């Protein structure tokens, strides 16, 4: 397994995509953190959920909403980089050579899932830095402060990085299931940017289904972080932190097992 992990590490760092995506994520999150930090504090703005003339949120709440963008917006990046670990093998046909040196397909998948941990952590830490660099100065200038030493804010950042690790693993498992690279990326982007946000708001507004929204992966991750950009938009039901982690890990495990017994069982021709 050690050799398999070293192989996965070398696969990753010998191409350029991991740092290109990392830079894109950092820039995107820093920019959005600044924008959101400005808009939640804007007193005259018609911020989402806020009445005109009142800030959407203030104080620590405003800060946590901004910093929670790590998950609310940023989770597409670890998902994509994770999925690429698998889909690029199928796209470029390197899966053949990978399975020639390690015919045990479960070991290959496990190595990729484990290799996603340090990669996800790197993405998580960079995402933390990005939302702080982008959000903190604006919060300090326009709002009530950056609250960078507040324990609630620190929790949001730390759990944000942790959740990013799980997102990367979910990405690997999803890529193993949907091995077509273009399809995997399209589904990830569509789900994270469109389907899930709508589902979270939509389900929350239907009485009987309001509880179900909390089990969507993004909502579960928000529960782990303890703050949500979406919570500020009115979707109320949130799981406990432990339950949130359990739900996320269940998604990763379910996708990985499904992949192992479907796509990874197939002949490679």
């Amino acid at each position: 397994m050690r050799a398999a992990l070293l192989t996965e590490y070398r696969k990753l760092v010998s191409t350029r995509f991991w740092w290109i995506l990392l830079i894109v994520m950092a820039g995107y999150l820093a920019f959005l953190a600044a924008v959101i930090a400005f808009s939640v504090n804007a007193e005259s703005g018609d911020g989402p959920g806020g009445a005109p003339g009142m800030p959407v949120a203030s104080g620590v709440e405003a800060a946590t909403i901004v910093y929670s963008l790590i998950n609310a917006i940023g989770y597409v990046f670890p998902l994509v980089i994770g999925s690429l670990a698998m889909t690029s093998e199928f796209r470029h046909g390197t899966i053949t050579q990978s399975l020639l040196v390690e015919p045990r397909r479960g070991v290959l998948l496990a190595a990729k899932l484990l290799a996603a941990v340090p990669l996800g952590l790197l993405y998580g830490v960079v995402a933390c830095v990005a939302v702080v660099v982008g959000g903190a100065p604006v919060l300090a200038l326009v709002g009530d402060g950056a609250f960078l030493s507040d324990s609630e804010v620190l929790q949001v950042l730390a759990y944000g990085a942790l959740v990013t690790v799980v997102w990367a693993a979910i990405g690997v498992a999803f890529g193993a299931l949907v091995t077509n690279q273009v399809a995997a990326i399209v589904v990830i982007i569509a789900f994270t940017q469109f389907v899930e946000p709508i589902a979270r708001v939509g389900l929350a507004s239907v009485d009987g289904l309001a509880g179900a929204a909390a089990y969507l992966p993004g909502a579960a991750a928000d529960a782990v972080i303890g703050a949500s950009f979406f919570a500020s938009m009115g979707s109320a039901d949130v799981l406990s932190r432990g339950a949130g982690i359990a739900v996320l890990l269940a998604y990763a495990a379910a996708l990985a097992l499904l992949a192992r017994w479907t796509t990874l069982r197939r002949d490679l021709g």
Partner: protein
Amino acid sequence: MVLGMSTAAITVEGLTKHFGPVTAVDDLSFTVRTGAVTGFLGPNGSGKTTTLRMVLGLMSPSAGRARVGDRPYVEHARPGRVVGSALEASSFHPGRSGLDHLRVYAPQVGVSDARCREVIDLVGLGAAARRRVSGYSMGMRQRLGLATALLTDPPTIVLDEPANGLDPEGIVWLRGFLRHLAEEGRSVLVSSHVLGEVQSTVDDVVVIARGRLVHASSLAGLADLAEHTTYVEGPDRAAVARLVEQHGWSAEASGAGWLVAGAPAPLVGGAAHAAGVELHELTPRGRDLEEVFLRLTAPPTTQGEDAR
């Protein structure tokens, strides 16, 4: 040598693969002798690649089995050390350098970075080692595939169509390279749809068509199936034509004379002498293995099921 001399390098027994209604490989059995170069020949689409993929554990057979040494490929603790293989010339990440491609797999087959550099020099890619594969020509990709196969210095090597996409110079290089592997005593299974590409380097041939074995022997055994062709020319063209007809040979006009198929020069000469036909030229043209190969693998519409 890892394997005992009593064990074949590769043993294929009753291997069968169905893809839906299509039978790609049909009850195929053959062995690859230890220390010999075996040419695995057949037209495109005859099941060569499917067979090799089953041998290497990438596809599961519908029936039958394949062993590398004493057990199936996937049951070796480190299969990459037992068999080196190059299956597709295009299976590289375009953004990775040639050297990094080797370094990626090095940990799992237990070789050092120094060995990666060694094999990339060996196949003549030393100068391009740090360039990304997207800039490689087809020939360079084939060479990188060979370098991958040789990474562990394995006793057995499996190459699928290594001559595909090579220019004539590359094919000459490949021949020399295969000969070099043979001289080192390795067992090599090399597939090709063109006999001529591997003819000068193989000891044994396994010929398949439509997924079935049509011939397996030494190269000399294949040559025995080849017809002798003789060029014959005399002042009386019609007399020579009658002679060919009387003996039931087939002949086609060629220049001033005839190209007689199926008869060695002494036989034609003797017959001419006995019939009193004057000859000015009688030249053996050798045996055309390619013709045998085409005959063995021809579709059943032009040839009966007597190919075996």
